[in-house]
């Protein structure tokens, strides 16, 4: 009950923040933009997360655990790992294990404006792949009721990797990349 009331309070706080910043800024959406880089031996996910003004408090509630108004290193890592648990990455029907590579969190005051961007990078070792066709699938289940998504394959830097096709569901919460290895 207390938890429900607290959630309601943060939602109301977000809504009350609307009039002062609504002219220029993301409002009631949490934008999760992912660029997937496929390289020989490794897959990298570069994710930019932008909470809108109306949902920033809800997102901050998950990050700033002790609610002291500061995002500590431990809190940043814990949130990145929470996100990581909501991501499922398959390569040719094999589930890949993600590793947190880096993260950058703006101050809560900036996040509350609707323009602060959290940047998180994950990687997964895929080992040497046989020549031929492969398929990578990413499913993002993080905060679906608040979120909108962008999913894109990066242009491979390696001459031996060729992206042949990309598919997404309508919301882009799930994306597939078909590629070949020489």
């Amino acid at each position: 009950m207390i938890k429900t009331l607290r959630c309601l309070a943060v939602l109301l706080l977000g809504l009350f923040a609307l009039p002062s910043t609504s002219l220029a800024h993301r409002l009631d959406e949490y934008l999760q933009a992912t660029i997937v880089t496929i390289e020989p031996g490794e897959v990298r996910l570069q994710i930019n997360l932008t909470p809108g003004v109306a949902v920033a408090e809800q997102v901050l509630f998950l990050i700033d655990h002790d609610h002291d108004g500061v995002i500590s290193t431990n809190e940043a890592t814990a949130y990145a790992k929470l996100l990581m648990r909501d991501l499922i990455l398959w390569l040719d029907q094999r589930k890949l294990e993600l590793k947190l590579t880096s993260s950058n969190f703006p101050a809560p005051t900036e996040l509350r404006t609707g323009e602060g961007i959290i940047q998180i990078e994950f990687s997964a070792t895929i080992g040497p792949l046989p020549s031929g066709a492969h398929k990578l699938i990413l499913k993002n289940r993080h905060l679906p009721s608040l979120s909108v998504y962008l999913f894109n394959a990066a242009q491979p830097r390696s001459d031996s990797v060729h992206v042949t096709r990309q598919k997404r569901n309508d919301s882009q919460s799930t994306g597939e990349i078909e590629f070949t290895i020489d």
Partner: protein
Amino acid sequence: MTAKIILASALSLYIASCELNSFAQGNPATGKATGEIANAANKFLATLDEGQRGKVVFDFKDEAQRKRWSNFPTAIFKRAGLRMGDLTKPQRDAVLALLAAALSPQGYEKVLQIMEGDEVLRKTDSGGRLIFGHDEYYVSFLGQPSTTEPWMIQFGGHHLGLNITLVGEQSTLAPSHTGAQPAIYELEGKSVRPLGRETDKAFALINSLNETQRKQAILGFQMHDLVLGPGRDGQMIQPEGIKGSDLTEKQREMLLDLAGEWTGIMHEAVAKAKMDELKEHIAETWFAWSGPTEKGSAAYFRVQGPAVIIEYAPQRLGGDPTKHLHTIYRDPTNDYGAKWRKP
């Protein structure tokens, strides 16, 4: 500054720029353009005191400053350099003269209209924490103006991030951001659309495609924002949509004309050189679309080829998305003039 003063200054500078540009048309070498731009930059620097000069010129190798640009208003994103609102009128005029020298008349007009739109936003913002308006734009340089050594002009604020890198006879506008909010407004009885031409040309192109072409061009999912907006330096995505080789000759011309709305922001000599490069790669340049195709609706599009990436994204930020637009212009191989700069 009132709108009238700004417009009067802009008009006189526009006439001056036309004189400069007509001279350049006779000798359309990009090297000559660099000389004119460097002259205008030096004239501006000469109006500054020592303290101001110390704030406006950065080392050319200052990577943090090179990347310090954004679509955000100044209250959110702190820019360095000199703020227009802190300059005297002669100094502001010198900045505008620099822009008039560096940009085409159409590009200069677009920049003024974006800034004027932000002034409209300032007047309609009811007591928010954000700050908008003409005064909130910043100018800075990396390196000293030169016709031989590399240097860079940065000018930007809310919905504007111009990054012009000049290296001898070469120069590039990539990466740069333009945007508009409101994307249509009234000024002295006239309707102004800072990004109106690119919007209309994109709808004309998508509506020129036949059913088979549309199936290729139209992405089957929603696009909520720019993929490679500010802060996405050094990244490049896989192209999608319809390839130039699958367009008719007329449609390829329309695609080039659309891209010209971004490449043509720069001085004509520079814009012509860039357009020649785009023409060379037109068969490998892609056009992608997401959203309705009825003119006037909110739709995302992307132009992507070996020498260019352009994105245009209406913003669903609580109002009519057609009235709040973000765009980005990049060069996959030459952002910040990377290929001309010594390692």
